């Protein structure tokens, strides 16, 4: 079975690295890191991920803007994405990602099992 492709967008490189290592170890996913919000759309175009984990608060381009650009892009608008944020508390989200205003959020600090549950939910 072809590996699901996961794109991690967060300005904190150590965080995307840790997420990648944990996801890759399962052997089920191909993971790409992108630490510049402004390059996220371009990376997505090249990598064609099945799911994007998108940090909300990034210094150059916010996750919100990235999401908007993805949805306006004919090629990329069907890619699913899940927000990662420090501002939402765990109580407001669930392990598989909580819905707020129609969007899915995962609260930081995110656990590997939560990431996996979320991937399972969206891209099986």
């Amino acid at each position: 079975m072809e590996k699901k492709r996961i794109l991690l967008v967060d300005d904190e490189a150590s965080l995307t690295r840790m997420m990648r290592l944990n996801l890759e170890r399962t052997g089920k996913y191909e993971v790409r890191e992108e630490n510049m919000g402004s390059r996220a759309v371009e990376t997505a175009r090249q990598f064609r991920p099945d799911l994007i984990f998108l940090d909300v608060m990034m210094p150059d381009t916010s996750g919100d803007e990235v999401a908007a650009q993805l949805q306006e892009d004919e090629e990329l608008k069907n890619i699913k994405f899940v927000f990662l944020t420090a501002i939402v508390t765990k109580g407001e989200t669930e392990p598989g990602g909580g819905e707020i205003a129609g969007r899915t959020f995962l609260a930081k600090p995110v656990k590997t099992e939560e990431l996996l549950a979320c991937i399972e939910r969206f891209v099986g």
Partner: protein
Amino acid sequence: MVSVSTLHAEPVPDTVLMVDDNATNLQLLYQTLDGRGYKLLVAKSGEQALNIAARAQPALVLLDIMMPGMDGYEVCERLKRDPVTEKIAVIFLSALDDTSDKVHGFHLGAVDYIAKPFQVEEVIARVDTHLKIHRLEQDLERRNRQLEILNDRILQAMGEGIFGLDRKGQAIFVNHAAAAMTGWSESDLTGSDLLDEKADGARMPMAECVTPSSLTDGRIHFVDTASFIHRDGSRFPVEYSCAPIHEDERITGVVVVFRDISERIRTEAELKRSHEALQKSHQELLDAQMKLIQAAKLESVGRLAAGVAHEVKNPLAVIQLGLEYLSAEGEGDETEVLVIADMLNAVQRADTVIKGLLDFSREKELDLAVDNINRVIDVSLQLVKHELTQHNIRLFRELDDSLPDLDLDANKVQQVFINLFMNAIQAMGKDGDLIVRTTIQDLPPGDSDLPSCEFDEAQQLICVDVEDTGSGISDEGMAQIFDPFFTTKPVGQGTGLGLSVSRNIIKLHGGEIGLDNRPEGGVVARILLPVNKGAKDGKETNTAG
């Protein structure tokens, strides 16, 4: 101001009236006194003498006794009887040189007696002397009169009431103000015993005052509050001074000077009232200020929380994921596993603190839905069931099934209950009773320091009491129990944010939360939630449907 210049009248020549039926004698007298600065008048009979005297008002009359018709005695008697002429000095002139005649003359009011035939020098000397005496007397009398008028004017002009009392307490003098203030007339009071009752039982103004001690000790006394009695029987407050009257080294009476102080007392009371009102609003201002400070504190905590959360959560996430990676990767020894487990645990604790901060800063919006508070309580109890069993705590669930539904954010309210239950469990440690009671109240229960905020009077309230049998809270602790970061728990066991978050949540629901120590020990936490009509109606609709 009363002028006293009239005391020094212009000197007018003294008028001397000479009365004798004998023209020679008159002639002789005239010559004797003429040119000495007197105005001289003569009368040849008693009747004429009286006419002239009444008209000319002489200072002195030289009066012959033996006259045909009206004799000198009768003239003198009449002069003395008539107020117009009574002051005129009379010197008898007579050949009679009998002591009894002189005595008779003096009895009739004469001042002197000159025997005929008279010596010129003697006449001049006696006339001069008596005129001088007469003048002095007149002066003195005038001065006395002036002084009396002056005294009286001062007395009457004074705003203070004045009583002059003799040793027995009888009024010797009373001024106008004193009469006006006591309702009596000056003549009613003068001569009455002011310290007593009148014969008809009317109580006099100072009937309730003790006999002024100035009478015995000769000192001035001040009484700053006393009651005088008005003629109508009412009392009025006065302050008065009492000063002794000394006469010939004896104390013959006292002067009481008093002032009605009703107005002053009223003003003082008013002043006191407005002072109290001022103090009250000052206190309210202080309270409001404290609340503002508190709110500002909460506000800044909120902003801080969001910032901290963001800055800390990323590193926490890195550590979390890194540890997870390490723990799955290595087949490490037992110690390594333990170390990694401890570190993961520490990350969770740090995250819990930040979660509390965020909760605290973000309790601004509710996700309301019609729900029943009993259900929320049951769910919350379910979540702490394990803790209850572990700590051997008995649960007393006393929920009123008839409670109306409310608009609730069930998740947030659940957070409040879990918080209260966990606090209670931690306060009891091992063994104890947890009592959870719901009731419906028509009015805020006003039986303790528990919340009694301003709800609409007609509003029903749902009251939730969470009681424990733990150690209670000290007064100091009680004062700051809702402060963010206040905690009585050991370091690491609580963030100190639970109750302040809880209060925010309850306040967002329009309710109040309060804590108090129970008389029998332990703590009661009370939540009051107003029943809004919409929710009640909703329930009825549901039941009907």
